[in-house]
């Protein structure tokens, strides 16, 4: 029983993994082409960018906030970096490119953080506003042209594969960028679990006033959270440009809600205080698998949005109903506890 509970995980990660497993098994029975290395690798590849985004969103959601500007930050940082390199005509190397992008992303995140923390404003409204500002600023001041040619180092990275397996159904490639993403996941997970910073995020999400009275630097942490999200988003932006082998300013923005949906499906509470990296990664992969398998089963791609929406309703609805049942049970137990000593008193 205890082992079962442990397997289930604090945020129902076990349940999510089970759903994912059932889906994969079901799909493989329904359509054998699903269960191939090709599909697996392509799902992993398509999950790279969403996972990086989701890590950022997870951090914000744990603190009880929400950020809808991350896609705008990502494309701003990625696109501005590429534009800068191409117009100046030099290639600072991968390290340089990521450094520039992270710098831009952190700066944009800092704007979010400062506005939110300094004036204690609702995070959704502020990031909605900055989303418009960042996106508009990119088009107005950076440019709107589509670049099909990337700086040399990025183009080289785009075609680098970690694994190159020849299977019966053709060659399957596992992209090299899976490794840094895994590394990022481990880093964020460690930061959340083992550092003071990470614990303060959970504390703030649980009760911001309690966290403040417990001595956490609430405002400062809040600013750092948004800087971190900006940095993560900018990495995702560069990675997206690398993977799509072109810099298109129209990309990414508009897909924010899919990421938030995946994070919430992964067990993070939108009220803050709950959420884990494992759950988030599982949530993202679940969404990607569903996207992929719908096409394989023969459902037209037009149904994709509806499917993700339904998935969100079911996932969150089950959580909401379970939470309510739990709170009802707790009330019952409280009553018993209250009644018990009372009886004893009467008896003695």
């Amino acid at each position, binding site marked *: 029983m205890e082992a079962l509970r442990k397997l289930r995980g604090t945020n129902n990660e076990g349940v999510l993994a089970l759903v994912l497993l059932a889906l994969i098994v079901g799909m493989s029975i329904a359509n054998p082409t699903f269960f191939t290395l090709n599909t697996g690798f392509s799902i992993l590849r398509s999950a790279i960018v969403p996972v990086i985004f989701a890590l950022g969103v997870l951090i914000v959601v744990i603190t*009880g906030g*929400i950020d809808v500007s991350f896609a705008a930050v990502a494309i701003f940082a990625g696109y501005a970096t590429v534009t800068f390199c191409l117009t100046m005509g030099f290639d600072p190397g991968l390290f340089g490119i990521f450094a520039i992008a992270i710098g831009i992303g952190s700066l944009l995140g800092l704007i979010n953080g400062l*506005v939110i923390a300094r*004036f*204690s*404003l*609702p995070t*959704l*409204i*502020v990031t*909605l*506003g*900055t*989303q*418009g*500002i960042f*996106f*508009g*600023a990119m*088009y*107005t001041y950076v440019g709107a042209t589509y670049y099909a040619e990337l700086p040399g180092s990025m183009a080289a990275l785009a075609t680098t594969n970690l694994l190159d397996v020849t299977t019966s159904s053709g060659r399957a490639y596992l992209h090299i960028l899976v490794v840094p993403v895994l590394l990022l996941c481990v880093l964020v997970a460690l930061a959340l679990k083992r550092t003071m910073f990470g614990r303060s995020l959970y504390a703030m999400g649980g009760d*911001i*006033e309690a966290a*403040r009275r417990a001595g956490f630097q609430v*405002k400062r942490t809040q600013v750092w959270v948004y800087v971190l999200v900006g940095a993560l988003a900018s990495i995702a932006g560069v990675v997206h440009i690398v993977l799509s082998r072109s810099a298109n300013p129209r990309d990414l923005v*508009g897909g924010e*809600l899919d990421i*938030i*949906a995946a994070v*919430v499906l992964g067990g993070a509470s*939108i*009220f*803050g205080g709950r959420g884990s990296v494992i759950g988030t990664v599982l949530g993202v992969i679940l969404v990607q698998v569903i996207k992929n398998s719908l096409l394989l089963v023969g459902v*037209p791609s*037009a*149904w*994709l*949005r*509806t*499917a*993700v*929406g*339904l998935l*969100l*309703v079911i996932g*969150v*609805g089950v959580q*909401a*109903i379970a*939470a*309510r049942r739990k709170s009802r049970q707790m009330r019952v137990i409280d009553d018993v506890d209250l009644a018990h000593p009372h009886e004893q008193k009467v008896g003695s």
Partner: protein
Amino acid sequence: MSPDTRTRPEASSGTSGLRNANDQLGKWTRRFVRRPGSNNSAGRMVVALLLAFALFAFLNPRVFLSPINLQNIAVAAPEIGIIAIAMMIVMLTGGIDLSLVAIANFSAITISTLYNAIAATDPALAESLSLVIVLAGVVVGVLGGAINGFLVSVVGITPILATLATMQIYNGLAIVWTGGSTLYGAPAVLGSIGQAAVANVPLLFIIFIVIAILVAVLVNRTALGRMIQLEGANSVAAQYSAIPRRRVLLKTYMVAGLLAGLAGVLFVARNPTASADYGSSYVLLVIVIAVLGGTNPTGGFASVFGVVLATLTLQVVSSGFTAIRLSSYEYAIAQGVILIAVMIFDSVSSSRTKKPKKSGPPRHSEPEPSAVALSDPDLKRN
């Protein structure tokens, strides 16, 4: 309590009349200054509207003040304004509805499809059934709102997530239905309503004002409106006041759906086409308008008049930007800046009247009026 507060009553009984008057005056000013929403924000929006209008009229009078431009403002404002009012009602309960634009599109698509289906066999019949077709569109809107309301009130999903999901669902269904293309065709009556004008004021604009007045009456003069406000101001207090929380929330989202459905009718009236991705920029815009119009995003306070004025202001800014040749991206920047500036302004001015230092240690002060505790952002956040 300091000693001087205790001794004051006996010490100065002679001037008690004067002091009472002074207290009364103080109380009155305080109430006026702290009065959240309505008068304050509406007054501010009047100033903003006039300023924006004067600015663009000064910068490019030839284009901006041309009758065509002014008419365009009056024709474009209603559909956005009605969705913004719907957003305002939902925000009044402390929620948010991201699916409104998707519902409006769904309603528009319903109208267009029904009309085309009937008109294919008998065009005359389709025209005579116009009213039924339009009603069907509105009913679809109410249904969409009811689903939102069910998810929020009965299932208990947070409004932002529930409507995020239904937005995807409605939008996805609309894409499936239309195959991603734009539908053409709508009852001719709607088209003529869209073109008509009374004394140079477009009929659409008059419809908008009438709807706004009806909603204002609903919010301020009916029991349901009161309950919606209470629910948003303090959900726990509302529960202890025997307000049927679920039913109120359900009705709120249904009214919002109804309004979105009406906005869908206006979409078709303005332009006899319907598509799944029309007005995708409205989702952000209506939140900007609602907040700008003095709606407290955490619930409890809002003003329909303020939202109407905010709609007009943003529409003036939008067409003014076009008149002085700024791009729609610069307009996006302006929207964001306006939204954040207003929020900052509100936060600074409300914290000035409430407590001098936000992050300071809790003061032990005399009990403050309950209205302050209700609108305290620290208590209501998250």
